[in-house]
């Protein structure tokens, strides 16, 4: 603040405001997915047969590919923060760009996956399992896109004359991005894998 007073001092917890807020928001996000996972488990237990048959129709390959993409993007994200902190602007841009690319890759694979489902006449209303599948992966995809928007802004700004030199902001966005990865880490086995084929 521009105030002459020293009210706006160092954050008491030594964690930047934005970063702290992001953690709080992530706690909230965990609860959001808790709602879905909790519901999923209940309905899974009352529709076991249905769930295991339906899960068998999902394309595990796409999911595996997407898992790799997201983990990779987490890595590049972490590296871009690291490089910005070091003042390594070139590498920062490179890794941020790669992260965005991964995001796009993820969305593209997801789109292909959805379209093949639609072409097999599988829709959210087909049965409860697919309702969960589309809603949970859909919300996850929205999160991916929501993360890519500010990321793209930062990326573009980094190429302007002023450059982009806010390591804490990038780190904060990174937290969010890792979290999105983390949700997928659970979605992957829960939706695609842990229904043994019979």
């Amino acid at each position, binding site marked *: 603040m521009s105030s002459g007073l020293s009210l706006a001092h160092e954050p008491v917890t030594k964690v930047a405001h934005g970063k702290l807020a992001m953690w*709080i928001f992530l706690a909230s996000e965990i609860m*959001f997915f808790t709602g879905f996972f909790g519901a999923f488990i209940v309905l899974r237990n009352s529709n076991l047969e249905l769930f295991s048959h339906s899960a068998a129709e999902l394309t595990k390959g796409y999911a595996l590919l997407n898992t790799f993409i997201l983990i990779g993007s987490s890595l590049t994200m972490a590296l871009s923060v690291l490089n910005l902190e070091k003042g390594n602007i070139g590498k920062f841009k490179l890794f941020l760009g790669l992260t965005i690319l991964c995001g796009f890759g993820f969305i593209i694979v997801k789109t292909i996956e959805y379209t093949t489902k639609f072409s097999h006449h599988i829709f959210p209303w087909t049965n409860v399992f697919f309702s969960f599948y589309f809603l949970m992966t859909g919300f996850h995809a929205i999160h991916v896109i929501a993360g890519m928007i500010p990321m793209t802004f930062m990326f573009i700004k980094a190429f302007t004359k002023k450059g982009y030199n806010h390591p804490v902001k990038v780190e904060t966005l990174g937290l969010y991005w890792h979290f999105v990865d983390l949700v997928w880490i659970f979605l992957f086995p829960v939706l695609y894998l842990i229904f043994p084929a019979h």
Partner: protein
Amino acid sequence: MQSATAHAHETLGHDSHGDHAHHHDVSFIRKYVFSTDHKVIAKQFMLASLFFLFVGGLFALLIRWQLAFPGEAIPLIGNILPDTWVSDGAVTANFYTQLLTLHGTVMIFYVIIPLAVGMFGNFCIPLMIGTDDMALPRLNMYSFWLVPPAGLIMLTGFFFDSGAAAAGWTGYPPLGPSSGAGQTTWLISLFLIGFSSIMGATNYMATILNKRAKGLEMFQMPLTIWALFITAILIVLGTPVLAAAISMQLADQYLHTSFFMPDNLLIGAPDNSLLTGSFVQKGNELLEHKQLLGGGGQPILWQHLFWFYSHPAVYIMILPGMGIVSDVLATFARKPLYGYKAMIFAIMAIGFLGFIVWGHHMFQSGMNPLLGTTFMLSTIVIAVPSAIKIFNWLGTIWRGNIRFTSANMNALAFIATFIIGGLSGVFMASAPVDIYIHDTYFIVAHIHYVLFGGALFAIFSGIYYWFPKMYGKMLNESLGRKHFYWSFIFFNLTFYPMHLLGVGGHMRRIYNPYIYEFLQQYQPLNQFITVAAIILGFSQFILIFNILWSLKYGKKAPRNPWQANSLEWAAPAHPGHGNFDTDIQVYRGPYEFSHPDRETDFYPQWEKPKDEPQGDEKAVPETKEHSQSA
């Protein structure tokens, strides 16, 4: 608002008011509409919620009219309302259901939560922890600006052919998703307001953790801040679960999924696609086409998810009130708050337990009765921290020197009504007792005793208490007293008899109770309630009048009109952007009233100790010697 002129008069800001220059190049829009100043946002919350209070109150009065005089034309407005709402000037059954749904929703999500959390959270937190603004002012602004559109979206429901949401404020499926576009607007509206809550709460937590003034320990914060802090935690952890549930219900409605729809339902899939614009609910005619797609879901699942949020939500509504009352009582009893730490632990306990008792709303829902036993026990346990609070408040006024300002009277009324509301909660907490009174007016009585009698009286108290700091003007005390007496008396006359109705078996959400023979005898009592409710409603105009009158003609407020201790009173009488005109250093807790070693009966947190051997409150042992001096 008045603040422009009032601020110009502000001469109390002594030395370099650093951000003065910075003030003037802010446009009107940025200053009063899309402002990031927490005080302006607080005022915006206040304005919006008071508006919604009248909307929700009007709905309540329409409800009351129907219950007292079923089928009779509503006076004054009955004949000008559209046919979709009334027939022969009387509320229709369908409209009644919409009214009660939106009454509950508006009051909870658009009145109590925005007032208790939005308004006081925004106003009090930065001031009471001695800082210039929220941690993330921009986020704060967004959190307000989601509220008006969200509220309006919900109200638009009334203008659809199929009407507004009509599944109760609880929106239980299958009724919820099988109804029309009104339900959709309701769901979207709740999603938005929930998002707004989360943004606000995130900000509060970050602010309280990160921006406390120099020297202010967590355990030196006033209870209002503690309560808001725990409230924020509840919001952050509870609301998203509701958001997930809402998404599922929306999907059930529009994507014909069946999260909450079991197999073989005989309800019409409503043709209410917003895309085609045909808001018609085919409803009951198409019996044979009533098969919903899918199946495999569970209606009770919604109830679990809903109450997982909405039970903590009732504490979201009461905790800030409890905080406010603690501060107001201590200030006006001129006594340290009794059991400061116990009070904080009680709030924490309520917050924690609040998350494991949601099932008490579902005793008769068909969930596993074993779960009923579990929830009965946890619910009963939650009454204990509430009892601790009641006793500590009584301890606070014990041997005090109590001033009966409007703020304090409302705070005392809070205690009085919360005791009744809480005790009726204990009836319902006992699962077997709940069997009979569940979904009767006993519950309605409980709701209003804790929400109106509890939360709203505390909010009134807070408004009287902080108005001077908000607007730089004092509220008129004698109007304030009138408002208090009328509200308090007619509140009790309105809602106490509802217990009796409930024990009589009077169901809630009933359009015309007199269909039932055993309820016909209660019409006089219902009429009595209605008359009291109308007077109660109109008493609220005294508050509005007081606010408007005082803004214009009210006495100018001094910096610390109540001679209170907490940091907000260190700020100028009507603080501008940046809040404080001096550096704030905190030396002691917020409740150092009537310190025996001092002339004055208060000892502000920011006042530098005279160089005594040991300069803080720890130096004053809580020994028996002091009891003589009192």
